[in-house]
């Protein structure tokens, strides 16, 4: 216990004795982690956005002839039994016209005088999350054709193809850019810590000369790295919060061409904690790597 107190005291005193270096290390870590955080924020919101788009994926089967109530029940039961289907709704001709009228809003006058059966009745199928893919949609469409003889189907085949290539590209860019940012953060942080240790190389040398063990020499520096890392991580979250609040919230909305009602979210609590933890990890790792270089007995 006394040893822990002693090491903690030495770490804090070291930090206090070179405030400039210490602040530089915390600031560097904060900025590096905030860069990774901004990227996470963009990826997270893009994911939310594509999830919204995916939720819109549906298969619509238009029916030439309105089925009787018993026939409809039978069709709905069959369709609901498809493993891919989450919900199946029958939209009658009247419902379709009502929807259309509502959608036209002020221009709904255009529809005056039209017969109620001008639009076809349809079956709208919403798919389960894991089946919101091009292949699954195609499979559902094929089954509707073969088993229920529904020929007039609409499921945005071309749009789905484009959407999938877009999300694949997004994932690829995410991995490459994210990997690069993390690598840059590790590189910058470990070099900053190296600089702070370089400034104290005399102290390290003297410690080895007076018979200090490696544990005695390294522990305070590792604690220092840990504390600086945590502070850097917290600073990164604060920077991110500021950026989100003042810039990204509106900026991303414009950049991502988000639909109305979609808000740019901040990182969830777990991710904020993960950034602080990443800071702590980076601090310790950076200190260990730098100490290997500067402490030689």
């Amino acid at each position, binding site marked *: 216990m006394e040893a822990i107190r002693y090491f903690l005291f030495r770490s804090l005193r070291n930090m206090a*004795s070179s405030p400039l270096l210490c602040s530089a290390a915390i600031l560097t870590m904060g900025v590096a982690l905030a860069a990774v955080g901004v990227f996470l924020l963009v990826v997270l919101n893009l994911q939310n956005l594509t999830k919204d788009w995916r939720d819109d994926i549906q298969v619509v089967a238009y029916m030439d002839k309105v089925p009787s109530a018993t026939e409809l029940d039978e069709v709905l039961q069959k369709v609901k039994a498809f493993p891919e289907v989450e919900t199946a709704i029958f939209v009658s001709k009247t419902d379709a016209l009502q929807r259309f009228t509502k959608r036209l809003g002020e221009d709904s006058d255009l529809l005056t005088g039209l017969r109620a059966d001008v639009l076809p009745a349809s079956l709208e199928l919403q798919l389960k999350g894991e089946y919101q893919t091009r292949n699954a949609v195609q499979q559902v469409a094929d089954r509707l054709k073969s088993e229920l003889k529904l020929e007039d189907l609409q499921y945005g085949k071309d749009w789905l193809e484009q959407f999938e290539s877009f999300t694949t590209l997004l994932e690829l860019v995410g991995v490459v850019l994210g990997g690069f940012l993390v690598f840059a953060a590790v590189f910058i942080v470990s070099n900053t810590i190296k600089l702070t240790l370089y400034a104290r190389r*005399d102290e390290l040398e*003297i410690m080895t*000369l*007076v*018979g*200090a063990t*490696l544990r005695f020499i390294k522990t305070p520096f590792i604690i220092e790295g840990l504390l600086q890392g945590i502070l850097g991580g917290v600073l990164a979250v604060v920077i991110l919060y500021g950026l989100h609040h003042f810039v990204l919230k509106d900026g991303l909305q414009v950049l991502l061409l988000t639909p109305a009602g979609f808000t740019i979210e901040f990182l969830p609590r777990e991710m904020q904690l993960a950034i602080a933890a990443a800071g702590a990890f980076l601090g310790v790792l950076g200190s260990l790597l730098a100490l290997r270089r500067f402490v030689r*007995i």
Partner: protein
Amino acid sequence: MIQLFNICKSYSKENSALKDVSVHIQKGEFVYLTGPSGAGKTTLLKMLYGAERPTRGQVLINGQNVTRLRRSRVPYLRRQVGVVFQDYKLLNSRTVYENVAFSLEAQGKKRYEVAQKVYQCLKKVGLEHKLKSKPLELSGGEQQRVAIARALAVDPLILLADEPSGNLDAEVSLDIMELLKGANARGTTVVMATHDLHLCHLFPRRTIHLEAGRLVNDSMP
């Protein structure tokens, strides 16, 4: 206490710092290590506190073979060997007290033991009134006295001094010599590298003379 058997140290094929040096130093001896710059004095001292390992030969300190010592055991060797350098090697950001306490803290001594010992040692070198000063506020001689206090604080079996008065004027050098002699009188084996022959004449002791890495003379006064 110190036994060197056929020590050779080469940094490259053409560059040999020490060539076949064998020396035995008894417990409680005071020995000068003399020779011109580049003769191998510092390299030899470094071997005694485990900072260098010989290319060939064996080094025994108090019966322990330093040549085969694992790196993790080197700190424990250094706790038996105090070292004083020409450039003092003090931490300028720390006070005199902290500099001396450092070596004791490194050995895991309790806080009250450290305080007591530091005061005793600083008193021995006549600097007990400068506890709170920073090294750069002291003269060269005073800084070297702090370094000696730090080396002696751990009660070393051996005290190695590498040109301890190299940066000091003649009068201050004599003070430093008195301190080293005092430590020797209390039983510490002292090995002092110097090229100040005047000091050797003033305080005649066993002298080991090195030239171009070879031991050329080992003489008693």
